[in-house]
């Protein structure tokens, strides 16, 4: 498996809007058998910054993270590392991660991952276009004596 693409889908799942991800998953109505390797647990990740944006690392503060791991048929493992404290979101992420390694890949990609990417892009575009509207256009006034 290419790590780049797995990195991409894991990132989309991790930062997904939880209600949106849950509704996408529930709409698929899939019944998946799995075993827990690690049941969902809530924890934190310490976020590091850089001094002056380029220097030494420093600890800024923590962010809540929920994680779980499971396997399908004792073979394929799925990991659900997600932002926030929603255990169901974490489980869905782990199931999607596992299913992305099976023949169900296309269903999950089309109905979940692609939609999450689109959702995030729309949010991003919304922010960028609003920010752009607050761009300052400077102009210089002509002074009287310069006439």
């Amino acid at each position, binding site marked *: 498996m290419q790590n780049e693409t797995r990195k991409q889908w894991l990132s989309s799942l991790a930062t997904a809007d939880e209600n949106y991800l849950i509704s996408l998953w529930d709409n698929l109505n899939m019944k998946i058998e799995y075993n827990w390797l690690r049941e969902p647990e809530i924890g934190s990740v310490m976020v590091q910054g850089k001094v002056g944006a380029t220097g030494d690392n420093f600890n800024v503060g923590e962010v809540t993270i929920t994680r779980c791991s499971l396997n399908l048929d004792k073979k394929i493992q799925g990991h659900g590392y997600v932002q926030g404290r929603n255990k169901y979101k974490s489980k869905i992420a782990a199931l999607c991660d596992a299913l992305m390694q099976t023949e169900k890949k296309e269903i999950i990609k089309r109905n979940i991952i692609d939609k999450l990417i689109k959702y995030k892009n729309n949010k991003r575009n919304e922010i960028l276009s609003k920010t*752009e509207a607050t761009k300052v256009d400077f102009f210089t006034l002509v002074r009287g004596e310069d006439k």
Partner: protein
Amino acid sequence: MYVSVKGGEKAINNAHSWLSEIRRGDVNIAELNIKQISEQLTLSVDRVMSEGSLYDKDLSALAIKQSRGDLIEAIFLMRAYRTTLPRIGSSKPIETSKMLCLRRISATFKDIPGKQKLGPTFDYTHRLLDFKLLADGEYEKAKIEKYDDKEIPHVLSFLNKEGLIQKEIPSGKTSKDITRNPINFPLTRSERLQSLSRGDEGFLLGLAYSTQRGYARNHAFVGELRTGYVEVQFEIPELGIEINIADVMFTECESVNQFKGSKKIPAQFTRGYGLVFGQLERKAISMALVDRSMRWKEFGEEYLGVAAQDEEFVISHCDNIQATGFLEHIKLPHYVDFQAELDLVRKIREEYKKNEQRT
């Protein structure tokens, strides 16, 4: 003699029942829900996340509701919850140059690549109460414009190219997590910044203001201020793959200070740095100014004996949970301690009387 006493259990329970009722307020008014708080009191939510040192909007909103809007009490609740969380790991250092900016301004350069973008700011408002908000539901919609989706470089990187500003280069020094290790002075700059980032906004504002008024002689410009979302990258331990595990809003401030030069360093501009969760620019600017004033030793500047230069003073007092814990504990029963003091004062007075009678 003092006999230990028990009691107060009923009083405490009843006090907490009344607290619960008074928190709810008039039942004829709709109850606040967590989403209303996290969507509409966003800057309170940001402050509680920043000083609570935990980025989680729902928890922050819950803490604000539970504390009846007392933000320090809410921060206390966040800190207490934070200590119960297992630490899964540490992120890669964030790249603020890749921030998805809502706001980005510089007070030192007018024309900058990426331009000045005001974002949703209180600046340039007239600070007049808006009675329209008393009525229901009216608001203006944000305008939109076409944009180039380019990275917005840091303003100070341009000064860097001319060598006019001190560079921030990794020193290779290791720093401790101040939430897991006791603080030993002197601290590294990284440890100071961790402490400032979770420090009390009001305390840092006061100290920063003191430097502007001359107590540390550092006149700062805001080289750059930016607010927006940054991707937090984290390596999944089971896979060794680095993913974007969280999107977190930060405000970053880089201050620029003139520096005449010293035996160690030629004249150049120097920097202070502020980085905080959420849209808290007053705090980010304060942090940058206080960071800079504590760097006097590094630049071979004179120590003027002022509070903002004294890292032990600043770091030991900037944490509002430590401060309020110690301050508020004196309202709890101190009957035994006070009884001892009472006896002592009585004794001294008796001796004083005896001496008076003798003369």
